[in-house]
């Protein structure tokens, strides 16, 4: 046991001597949290729109006001001609053009219907979908208000939508819990694979193997400090997410801790696996980044929903990357009340 403690002490020296890397290790969670929390948002925020108003009456004006005051849209300009649309989209800043038909208010009063055309720049399909659905929903709300004011009762079916767990549909709620898994993967797998490969590259692994230390003790000794750093990191993210982003943590803290440790051990095992194959620190880094981090971001449901993948692929990845489960897990723990 003494020899083992001695080994861990040496590992701690390695980590603390290289203080630059240590700072990176500790800062990564904070930086990524702010990056994902503030910079990467999938909800709409001041998308620029243009309006072609062939009618210019009180109802089109009201709708326009509603749209702009929602905070989701920013009026770029009123334009006169449909021919300008293509030019605007090519410039790139305008995401949507809203066209009111002629005699909008009159038609609405007499015939009970009038049409609005939404033209979106679908060169980015995600934004286009978002923009049009936000617009439609604002217009629908306005329509309901109109109906309420109208004297004759309308027989429309009015769906009442309730978004559970995340009523404001904040993307931070989704990214931050997933970020915990991402950071743990980064620190645990990447750092351990590099640390073990370093001993191999330097030749010190041979010296250690010739010593009476048991091989499993060498591996465990190398891994223990990173378990502690990883665990510390996950707590940092948790604290910041609650304090700064005000993400409600409704689940069981004990369960969260337990699952984090489980995930850390799994990620460390992957790191060790990589270190058995890689012969240099560089190779270990490339394997960890390409083989673990990329799929973690792209294929695990961190950004894109796993349900969108074809079934066979989904099953393959779900099996290969055990951590897909973990991505769902923090979200679940964060949001479920006991």
């Amino acid at each position, binding site marked *: 046991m*003494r*020899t083992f403690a*001695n*080994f861990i*002490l*040496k590992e701690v*020296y*390695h980590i603390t*001597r*290289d203080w630059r890397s240590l700072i990176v290790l500790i800062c990564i969670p904070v930086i990524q949290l702010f990056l994902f929390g503030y910079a990467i948002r999938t909800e709409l925020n001041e998308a620029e729109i243009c309006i072609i108003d062939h009618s210019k009456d009180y109802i089109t004006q009201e709708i326009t006001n509603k749209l702009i005051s929602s905070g989701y849209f920013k009026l770029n300009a009123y334009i006169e001609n449909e021919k300008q649309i293509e030019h605007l989209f090519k410039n790139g800043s305008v995401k949507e053009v809203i066209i009111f038909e002629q005699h909008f208010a009159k038609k609405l009063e007499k015939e009970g219907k009038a049409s609005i055309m939404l033209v979106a720049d679908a060169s980015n399909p995600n934004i286009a979908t978002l923009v049009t659905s936000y617009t439609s929903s604002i217009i629908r709300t306005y329509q309901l208000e109109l109906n309420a004011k109208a004297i004759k009762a309308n027989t429309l079916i009015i769906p009442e939508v309730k978004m559970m767990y995340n009523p404001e549909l904040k993307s931070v709620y989704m990214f931050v819990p997933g970020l915990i898994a991402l950071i743990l993967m980064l620190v645990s797998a990447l750092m351990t694979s590099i640390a073990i490969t370093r001993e191999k590259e*330097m*030749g*010190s692994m*041979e*010296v*250690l*193997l*010739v*010593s*009476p*230390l048991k091989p499993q003790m060498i591996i465990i000794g190398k891994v223990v400090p990173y378990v502690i750093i990883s665990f510390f990191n996950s707590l940092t993210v948790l604290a910041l997410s609650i304090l700064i982003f005000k993400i409600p943590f409704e689940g069981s803290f004990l369960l969260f801790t337990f699952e984090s440790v489980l995930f850390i051990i799994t990620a460390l095992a992957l790191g060790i696996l990589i270190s058995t194959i890689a012969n240099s620190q560089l190779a270990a880094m490339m394997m960890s980044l390409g083989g673990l981090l990329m799929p973690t971001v792209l294929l695990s449901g961190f950004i894109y929903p796993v349900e969108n993948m074809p079934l066979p692929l989904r099953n393959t990845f779900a099996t290969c990357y055990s951590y897909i489960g973990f991505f769902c897990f923090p979200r679940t723990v964060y949001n479920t009340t006991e």
Partner: protein
Amino acid sequence: MDNNHKVIEVTDLTKKFGNFTAVSQITFDVNEGEIFGFLGANGAGKTTAMKMLTGLLSPTSGKAKVAGFDVYKQSEQIKKHIGYMSQKFSLYEDLTIVENISFYAGIYGLTDEQISEKTNFLLKKLDLEKSRNELIKSLPLGWKQKLAFSVAIIHDPGIVFLDEPTGGVDPITRRQFWNLIYEASENKKTIFVTTHYMDEAEYCDRISIMVDGKIEALDSPVNLKEKYYCKSINEVFIHLARKNKNQ
């Protein structure tokens, strides 16, 4: 060496990697306190043979005993009784001198008292007391090698394996390094050393020359030179390597 107590006994030791035979039926003994030179060109099988003796590789066939323990069954026991130092690695660069010493002393199971006693003794002996808390990377290579050797024998092993310990070191430092080896040998430690430098071979009590996985010659340097009518071990080595090629 008059004392015929054998600490390494090797009989027909063989290692095959697939179809390739790295070490082919080598047989030799090493006596206690002897400086045994293990010579051979790159790829001749020196390192493989050494790995089998230190318990890093298990042999394909043959018998070998190190410090009285069987390499197949008792490699854990062997590890406690040998020291090892390789050219590629000497010490951890980002640890201080004292930290390196106590780390190696610790993994060999020395107690705290023994560690601090050994540390002070070593620092005094190597004249490193002033720089005890300096990082290894600030030391010149020669000092590193001397310190690495001292650390390799910190647990007082009976046998020390040195894998090209003087690679890349200047001749004066090499000479100093060999003084450390002589000193250890006088303290009844057996030294098993591989080297590239043929002048160093002359310092050994006995040398074996490996060519293509086999031991071609094994005797004291003086006897070998007489036998092959050569002036230096270098000539003996070239003679043996050529002979083998021409066959």
